[in-house]
């Protein structure tokens, strides 16, 4: 089975090596084609210019992706009355949407690698719009599961994955800031959608509201239109050499090899050999398990402490509002030259801060203290989420990021779905909310500690490996350039040296140091 040629590979003059680390030196003299082309001192990726419009597009896209499942819950009561469903049946709509959004990650990564971000975001926006519009005509709850849950979830999944990928393509030195700004879309859109949904519900009923929301979700198509593919200038000789290499390896590859290659496109298990990736994955899983339950139970806890319902609902709005400003702020801080090289530690610190907030929550009994808790919770939550994908980009690099993020999201699906019900079980068993907060705080804090400790070990071992290789053969200096993070600078030489060793000689698809021929739609 021959691996199909990617259509955009035919564009000549559009390929070069995706450079990181020391290879920046090689390409700094190349002119990068960005529409707001500035002069030659720019190295690729563009890191500015049209990139900021792409950040706006990603902001909209990610905003819809994270806020829609939560904002839809405003309609649930009326849908419940109209369709005669029980509360748990209704709650499944959001859960299915979130589950599909995360589980569709690998599929989305494959599509993004093949077609580029722009078409995928446009298709995702269309799917979301169609899902909401068809849901407005629904007569049974299963119909809503299919339309909102599955089709909507798929659309959002495409949006999320493609937006993150294109940020990694457009930014390198300003990437934490870009990530922070893009991820800020989630609280901004939630703050905007929640009252809007309430207003639409009163004026148009749930069917009319879903119809209008479907139209609004087509704004993701606008966001997709903004995501212009990155055009890279060419090196004709390199392209020719690359093509030769690819065709020869394809001919040499056995049938089994080709099958494996295609299967591996969906779930690339070679990632599990990467120590940094495993550490990130485990820390992240622990975080996601404990992250959402406090949000779900915060108002109930406040009401149990004697706060009235209206003020309790306000706590979540406060948290969202704080979150809105913390995410870009964290991006800015993470971009600074002191933090950027140590961004993985900063991420671990953010998780520990979040966990500590939760552990202290049961001591907050009065409303003023609960407001303080909500503020600190917002800060912690925002910090973690601003960095969550930045750290993965940092670990994996532009090449492997799309597949990595798909793998991470599908694995994160399980703690995300298991976390709140487990917490609810604790509340039911002990009749007290404080155990919920203790559990979540403990899990998150241990995740953070795990990340920091394991990262220290990991970098230590990387240093040792690098020293060994440098001793064996001379290779160019790879100091910290341009505020690149420690893992990127470390990764480059180890990839270059170890790539011939881990990579399957018959399997060029795992060659992530190979040329990047993408995004030419």
């Amino acid at each position: 089975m021959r691996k199909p040629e990617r259509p955009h590979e035919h564009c000549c003059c559009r390929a070069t090596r995706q450079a990181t680390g020391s290879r920046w030196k090689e390409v700094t003299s190349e002119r990068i084609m960005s529409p707001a082309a500035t002069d030659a001192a720019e190295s690729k990726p563009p890191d500015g210019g049209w990139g900021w419009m792409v950040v706006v597009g990603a902001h909209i896209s990610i905003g819809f992706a994270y806020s829609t499942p939560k904002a839809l819950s405003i309609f649930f009561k009326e849908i419940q009355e109209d369709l005669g469903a029980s509360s748990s049946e209704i709650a499944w709509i959001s859960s299915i949407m979130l589950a599909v959004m995360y589980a569709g990650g690998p599929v989305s990564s494959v599509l993004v690698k093949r077609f580029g971000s722009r078409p995928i975001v446009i298709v995702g926006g269309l799917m979301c719009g169609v899902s909401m519009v068809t849901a407005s005509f629904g007569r049974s709850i299963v119909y809503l599961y299919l339309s909102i849950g599955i089709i909507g979830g798929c659309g959002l999944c495409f949006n999320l994955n493609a937006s993150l990928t294109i940020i990694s393509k457009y930014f390198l030195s300003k990437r934490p800031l870009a990530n922070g700004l893009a991820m800020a879309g989630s609280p901004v859109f939630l703050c905007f959608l929640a009252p809007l949904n309430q207003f639409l519900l009163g004026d148009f009923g749930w069917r009319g509201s879903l119809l209008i929301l479907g139209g609004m979700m087509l704004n993701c198509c606008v966001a997709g239109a903004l995501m212009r593919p990155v055009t890279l200038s060419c090196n004709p000789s390199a392209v020719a050499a690359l093509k030769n290499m690819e065709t020869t390896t394809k001919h040499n590859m056995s049938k089994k090899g080709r099958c494996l290659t295609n299967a591996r496109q969906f779930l690339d298990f070679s990632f599990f050999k990467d120590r940094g990736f495993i550490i990130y994955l485990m820390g992240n899983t622990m975080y996601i398990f404990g992250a959402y339950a406090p949000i779900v139970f915060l108002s109930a806890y406040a009401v149990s402490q004697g706060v009235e319902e209206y003020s309790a609902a306000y706590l979540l709005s406060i948290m969202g509002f704080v979150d809105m400003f913390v995410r870009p702020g964290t991006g800015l801080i993470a971009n600074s030259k002191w933090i950027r090289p140590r961004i993985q530690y900063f991420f671990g610190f953010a998780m520990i801060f979040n966990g500590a907030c939760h552990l202290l929550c049961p001591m907050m009994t009065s409303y003023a203290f609960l407001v303080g808790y909500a503020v600190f919770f917002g800060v912690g939550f925002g910090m973690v989420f601003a960095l969550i994908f930045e750290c993965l980009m940092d670990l994996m690099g532009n090449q492997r990021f799309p597949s990595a993020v798909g793998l991470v999201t599908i694995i994160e699906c399980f703690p995300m779905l298991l976390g709140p019900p487990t917490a609810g079980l604790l509340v039911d068993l002990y009749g007290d909310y404080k155990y919920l907060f203790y559990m979540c705080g403990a899990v998150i804090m241990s995740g953070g500690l795990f990340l920091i400790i394991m990262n220290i070990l990991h970098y230590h071992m990387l240093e040792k490996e690098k020293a060994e290789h440098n001793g064996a053969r001379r290779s160019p200096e790879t100091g910290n350039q341009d505020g690149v993070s420690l893992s990127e600078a470390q990764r480059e030489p180890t990839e270059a040296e170890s790539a011939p060793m881990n990579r399957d000689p018959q399997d060029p698809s795992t060659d992530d140091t190979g040329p990047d021929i993408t995004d030419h739609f």
Partner: protein
Amino acid sequence: MIPGKRRAAVMLLSAAIVGAMLMQPVRSQNEPSIAASENVLLTFEEGSSPGIVLQCNLTSSYSAHKENFWMKNGEEIPETRQDNKNMELKLDRPRADAAGVYVCVYTFDNAPPANATIEIKSVPVITGHKRSENKNEGQRAVLHCKSLGYPHPIWTWHKVDNGGFKDIDNSTGRFFINSRDNYTELHIVNLDINADPGVYACNATNVIGSNKETSVLRVRSHLAPLWPLLGVLAEIIILIVIIVVYEKRKKPEDLQDDDDLGGPV
């Protein structure tokens, strides 16, 4: 007459007289008598709800009484059982729900219980009603009103039209009124967007007085969300056109630049 027969007749007659005399006390026994306070009329003016005391006093009875308690509207009021002949029920700051039929019940060891009834009457006060109801056309709307007070009112529904109360026109047969003691519902099926929207009033009337409350009914048209949808779609199309045009204008310039430079590697 034979002397034995005469004696028998005398004995029979004395037995009859004694028997008659013995039966007298049974017929002359009285029902127990209870002195109860008067019926009360509740008013709700500001500052004049001092508290009501209902009293019952067992003035005479033939048998020792065991205990007594109060009942309201057919159900026993908890924690009112006592064995004092004189019993009182205090109601502090009575609201409309204090109105009803109160019965003081005395139970006896060897006799059926006796009771006296006191009524607290008031104007019906409407408590539960929806201020507004939004429904789509063709759906069924239910407006309801709940009242407190005694005696139970008679319910009527009107439509408020230009400040005046009109009877509801049921020529289309779509209006149904269900009323119970102190609860009423107005069902409107197959809502008509032209005729049905407006203000509806439920009116509760009893011997003391009457009260009414209004609810607003709004009917949403099926086509209502289409205009905002078209507006949103127009905005999206305009934005996409702008972005595409801007990109097409830039592209020729890019291609020119690309040819100029060839990067050495």
